[in-house]
């Protein structure tokens, strides 16, 4: 694609004439692109500038001098002294003929088609078409529409067979979701046996479909393009922070579409981004503050609820106050949270990392990508360690796929086989707990045989992968939650450092965090950090913050989430303030949370819905969702982006920022805040380089940072006979607080399950789909069995993010757990 090519030197330019206009373009440019770059429009259907040309639709025919026939400009490379004409009678006749033929089988049901009004076939027919058809015979007929799963509606009658969707699945997403079947007149787009489509990117095919053949089931008939108001926003789900456009009709959010952002999501979006918006308009949203009275939560006024919170904060010593969450708020909300709790209340017990029991200090292992998302596609080799990329950060996969297409090898290490494993050159599926040994073997620190013995991955594969990585000059190492969420995480980090050093100093990305956790991290919603990644221990940094706030910043480091829960159990923490988080479901030890809750005097929760945490709270404050407030967020690469308000909130819900400002006044230290812009500017005074669109990359740990426990040998998890080691992974489609209220996401998630290896299944008498009880020393869950060869032998995989069956019930914050899986009779 020419857009990616480096600017050519004048010697590599070719000169041609298009419509009598002399044009110079770099060598390799197609005639269509040359025309386009010079403002000459040639209609297309099959060509899409993110994919190589195909020449299937014949719409882009042009006349080229000395060529006997018309040529397809999208496939024709511009040559020296070429003379191209796009407006001659011959070209116009050809365009009319092509459109007439395309419309032969097109049902022209525009009035009932969701694409009507934004349809390239409509537009091109109006501009270039014949105006009437001579075709009077019966059109090709299919079943009018077919629902291909919860989000995709296929209408084959409308299809003009441009192959964009098929090629998207082959070239861009690599999931081969839709394919072409039959030949000639009977050609159709479908899946084998018309099964529901299995893809995480199918929303993009609806976007690039030039007709209404692929439409969205959630947007179906809800609106017309001219009804929609568009508002720029940022996707709130995974940490990638894809740029989106919200479509609003009246008070309804009708759909989310990707907004072009070459540095982040290009023009794509994953299906959670596409279909994960309906929770905003859910009738279950909290509409008024709730206060616990006589043992039950009852509606209250803001004055009563905030009065109660202020009393609790006033009557408690600062060290006994803790704040968790902040990854679902905007940067401005989070900054005011800091001003309130660090400045006014005076506590450092602040941590946004709710979903981890093993937090590594940010100064040594900051979450996020040290390189830009756009740079991922330029890596020469990519190592994925314990990261299920399409499930956790799907947009990054599209970049990795581009790197693979360029020839970069992908090496995957993990306790289960991710969906993208078929694209990997080396797959190292290992035992849980064997990460450090495996990585050290990859780095060459220990022999491959030792790494194989400790991890269960074959030595041959380790050796081959190590050789591949050493040959790559610019590798990229990406480690995820599955590798780092364990007691030996320090050893894994040390091994990752070793691997990066062995890969010629490859950058290490730690792919963790969701929503605005990038912003929470850069702002320092952490027990030991200040805004701008500066450590709390640095007196000059503390003074700089104190100078802006006009209040001192406490110097003693605070507690992490785990530390706060431990302190609550020991009655050292009395007030816990939870901002947009659900530790009762998401903290990886449900029992630890329950015990901590019993030790708390007051639990305050900012929430959209009555989550498990909110149900147990003393005060629940209804807040605004991402589409209801203007502000900025930062993603895993630290890029600051703005999202605009599209809707009004439900009931009397307020933004987090308003609540913090109100509380500060009640505590006697008003924060003078007029607008989010003012807060944004104040953050800018504290963090150098803070601006919209700027990237504040997470710091790379210094060479001398040193990890604890480097070189300690790793062993397999000891477990009772017959038990399986539990590994918990994230799924893109889950049923968490927000996703469960989005039919498109909820429907694709399906029921919660536990996956076991076929050999273990046979041994334990488990069959696919059978209900079973999964029991750990901490608790038990009823799940459906899924027999899956992708999980390592002796392991059981259970997804996180199902609020009805939270895997945290089984997990233990003190270390890995072994579970027994017992069948509960036939399905």
């Amino acid at each position, binding site marked *: 694609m020419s857009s990616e090519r480096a600017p050519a030197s004048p010697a590599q330019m070719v000169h041609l004439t298009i419509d009598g206009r002399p044009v110079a373009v770099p060598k390799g440019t197609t005639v269509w692109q040359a025309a386009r770059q010079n403002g000459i429009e040639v209609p297309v259907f099959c060509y899409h500038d993110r994919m190589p040309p195909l020449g299937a639709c014949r719409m882009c025919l042009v006349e080229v001098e000395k060529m006997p026939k018309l040529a397809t400009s999208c496939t024709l490379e511009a040559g020296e002294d070429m003379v191209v004409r796009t407006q001659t009678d011959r070209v116009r006749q050809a365009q009319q003929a092509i459109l007439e033929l395309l419309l032969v089988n097109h049902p022209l049901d*525009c*009035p*009932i088609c969701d694409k009507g009004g934004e349809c390239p076939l409509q537009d091109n027919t109006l501009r270039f078409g014949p105006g009437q058809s001579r075709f009077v015979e019966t059109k090709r007929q299919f079943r009018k529409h077919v629902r291909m799963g919860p989000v995709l509606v296929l209408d084959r009658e409308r299809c003009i067979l441009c192959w964009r969707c098929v090629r998207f699945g082959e070239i861009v997403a690599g999931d081969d979701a839709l394919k072409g079947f039959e030949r000639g007149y009977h050609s159709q787009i479908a899946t084998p046996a018309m099964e529901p489509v299995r893809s995480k990117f199918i929303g993009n095919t609806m976007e690039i479909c030039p007709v209404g053949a692929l439409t969205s089931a959630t947007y*179906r*008939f809800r609106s*017309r393009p*001219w*009804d929609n108001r568009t508002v720029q926003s940022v996707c709130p789900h995974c940490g990638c922070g894809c740029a989106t456009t919200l479509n609003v009709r009246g008070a309804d959010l009708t759909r989310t579409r990707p907004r072009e952002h070459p540095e982040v999501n290009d023009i794509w979006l994953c299906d959670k981004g596409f279909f994960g918006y309906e929770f905003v308009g859910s009738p279950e949203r909290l509409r008024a503050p709730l206060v616990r009275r006589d043992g039950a939560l009852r509606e209250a006024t803001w004055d009563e609820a905030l009065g109660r919170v202020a009393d609790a904060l006033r009557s408690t010593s600062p060290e006994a106050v803790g704040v968790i969450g902040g990854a679902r708020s905007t940067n401005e909300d989070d900054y005011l949270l800091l001003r309130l709790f660090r400045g006014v209340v005076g506590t450092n017990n602040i941590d946004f990392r709710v979903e981890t029991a093993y937090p590594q200090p940010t100064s040594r292992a900051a979450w996020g990508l040290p390189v830009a998302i756009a740079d991922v596609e330029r890596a020469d080799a990519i190592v994925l360690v314990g990261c299920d990329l399409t499930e956790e950060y799907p947009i990054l996969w599209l970049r990795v796929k581009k790197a693979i297409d360029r020839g970069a090898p992908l090496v995957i290490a993990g306790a289960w086989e991710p969906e993208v494993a078929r694209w990997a050159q080396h797959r190292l599926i290992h035992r849980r707990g064997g990460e450090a040994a495996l990585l050290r073997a990859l780095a060459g620190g220990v022999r491959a045989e030792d790494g194989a013995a400790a991890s269960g991955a074959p030595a041959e594969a380790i050796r081959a992968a190590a050789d591949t990585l050493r040959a790559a000059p610019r590798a990229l190492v990406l480690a995820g939650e599955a590798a780092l969420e364990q007691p030996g995480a320090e050893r894994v980090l040390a091994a990752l450092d070793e691997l990066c050093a062995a890969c010629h100093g490859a950058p290490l990305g730690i792919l963790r965090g969701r929503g605005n956790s990038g912003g929470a991290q850069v702002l320092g919603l952490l027990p030991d950090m200040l805004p701008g990644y500066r450590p709390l221990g640095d007196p000059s940094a503390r003074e700089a913050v104190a100078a802006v706030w006009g209040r001192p910043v406490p110097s003693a480091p605070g507690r992490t989430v785990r530390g706060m829960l431990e302190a609550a159990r020991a009655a050292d923490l009395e007030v816990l303030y939870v901002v947009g988080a659900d530790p009762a479901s998401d903290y990886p030890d449900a029992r630890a949370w329950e015990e901590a809750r019993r030790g708390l005097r007051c639990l305050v929760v900012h929430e959209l819905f009555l989550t498990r945490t909110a149900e147990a709270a003393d005060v629940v404050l209804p807040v605004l969702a991402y589409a209801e407030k203007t502000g900025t967020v930062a993603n895993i690469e630290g890029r600051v982006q703005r999202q605009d308000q599209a809707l009004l909130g439900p009931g009397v819900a307020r933004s987090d920022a308003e609540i913090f400002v109100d509380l500060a006044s009640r505590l006697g230290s008003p924060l003078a805040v007029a607008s989010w812009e003012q807060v944004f500017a104040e953050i800018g005074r504290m963090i150098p380089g803070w601006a919209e669109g700027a990237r504040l990359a997470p710091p790379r740990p210094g060479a001398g940072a040193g990890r604890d426990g480097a070189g300690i040998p790793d062993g397999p998890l000891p477990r009772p006979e017959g038990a399986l080691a539990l590994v918990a992974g994230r799924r893109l489609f889950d049923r968490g607080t927000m996703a469960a209220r989005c039919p498109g996401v909820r429907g694709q998630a399906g029921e919660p399950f536990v996956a076991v290896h076929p050999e273990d299944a046979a041994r334990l008498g488990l069959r696919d789909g059978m209900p079973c009880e999964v029991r750990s020393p901490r608790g038990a869950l009823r799940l459906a069995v899924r027999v899956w060869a992708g999980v390592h032998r002796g392991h059981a995989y259970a997804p996180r993010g199902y609020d009805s069956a939270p895997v945290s019930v089984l997990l233990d914050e003190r270390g890995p757990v072994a579970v027994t899986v017992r069948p509960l009779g036939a399905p």
Partner: protein
Amino acid sequence: MVRQLRQVWATVKGLGVVGRYLFRRPVTVRYPDAKPPVQRRYKGRHYLTLFADGMERCVGCELCVIVCPSQSIFVRAAENDPLAPHSKGERYAADFQINMLRCIFCGFCEEACPTGAIVLGHDYELSGYTRESLIYTKDMLTEKYPGESGRDPHREL
């Protein structure tokens, strides 16, 4: 003298006009007891027409909404239940409202309608005591029986 004669002549001339019309049929009608006929193409209140089998013609395409110069139409479409469809095809108008206070009776909606669903009938007695009563809903607009509107939905299709 001449002036007075002119005045007399003017009076006679004026009475001549009265006399001329005195024995003609009056053009006034005893409205509301009698109603004057309107032209065949008169544009009065809207109807949503039905097919002869009682199915709705409207498919909720919203072309009338976008063409309406006074933005007086609101349509919300929905998907037909295949077992009990409202209209022929997948889509029908779940809600259809016309604000008669805003409507200027230009007839563009009729022009734009691809199925002949919306027609402007001959009723002109459109008044009410509240603004709300002049927002005509789908129930009010849909014909009670096929052909109630008195217009031919096929005229140009």
